[in-house]
């Protein structure tokens, strides 16, 4: 949802409906075992490429791995911006995601995910807005 807000696919000033959320790419539809695959979502108005990745409970392990891979491969560090939305995940999202994706019980899990997402929508919109200067800089 943060990536969708970044790409302007969701209006940050209006709470999206469940149907709108369900129409987002990869929304609660990523096949099991696909965590860790970095998925392309689109380009923003500055031609930045936007990706999403599920990292389960990796926390800082993920950031360390990416940053050190960049260094080991001698890639330009400034071209990668990691934005971690995990601290915003609430219990309905965590439980709903587990039921839906891990257990395959979408009938219970998906409504929970939608409820959880709608509850943190304002905070996610603020998160994207506050970080915007990071990718707007020097553009």
């Amino acid at each position, binding site marked *: 949802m943060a990536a969708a807000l970044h790409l302007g696919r969701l209006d940050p000033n209006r709470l999206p409906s469940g149907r709108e959320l369900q129409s987002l790419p990869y929304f609660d539809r990523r096949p099991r075992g696909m965590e860790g695959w970095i998925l392309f979502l689109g380009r923003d108005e500055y031609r930045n490429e936007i990706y999403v990745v599920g990292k389960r409970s990796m926390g800082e392990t993920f950031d360390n791995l990416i940053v050190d891979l960049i260094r*080991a491969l001698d890639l330009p560090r400034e071209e990668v911006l990691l934005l971690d939305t995990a601290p915003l995940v609430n219990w309905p999202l965590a439980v709903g995601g587990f039921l839906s994706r891990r257990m395959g019980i979408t009938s219970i899990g998906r409504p929970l995910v939608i409820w959880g997402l709608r509850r943190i929508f304002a905070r996610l919109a603020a998160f994207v807005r506050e970080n915007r200067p990071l990718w707007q800089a020097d553009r």
Partner: protein
Amino acid sequence: MAGRPVIFLYICPTGTTAALAAALHLEQLPPDRCPPWEEFLALPGLKLNRERGKLFFAGRDSAGRPIYYAAVGPHGKLAGQITTSFLALWGLPGEAVKVMEAGGRVSSLVFWGWRLKSYLLMYWGLRRSWRGLSRWVSRAKDGDGGWGMEPGKADP
């Protein structure tokens, strides 16, 4: 990026087995026998608290390939998938970084020794799995010469 050798990345939950696998790869440890207890305690990779996800450079092997190791907690498979898909973003082939999961190659005593902060238990586990680990490293090592380069030639 052409002409680069493969980067070997040994991973395991704690980093200890991965560090030993890297040392075996670099021929810093004998492949046929676990080092004696005193030598084991002096091994540079033997550290109980290692920052997860960080890549530690162990050295370059005889073919000039860089060897790294990392602790990744219980996320070995995830770390492999992240690495492979991250390479694809840059147009790099998946084999540019060879992620080798070393944790499953040793007795679970090594892991429990780490959890209980018992070097003795870790050592016991390693002694039991040493040959298997070194055979696995040897196979991994001989498996690939590099990408974008002629076999057997390292980058300058």
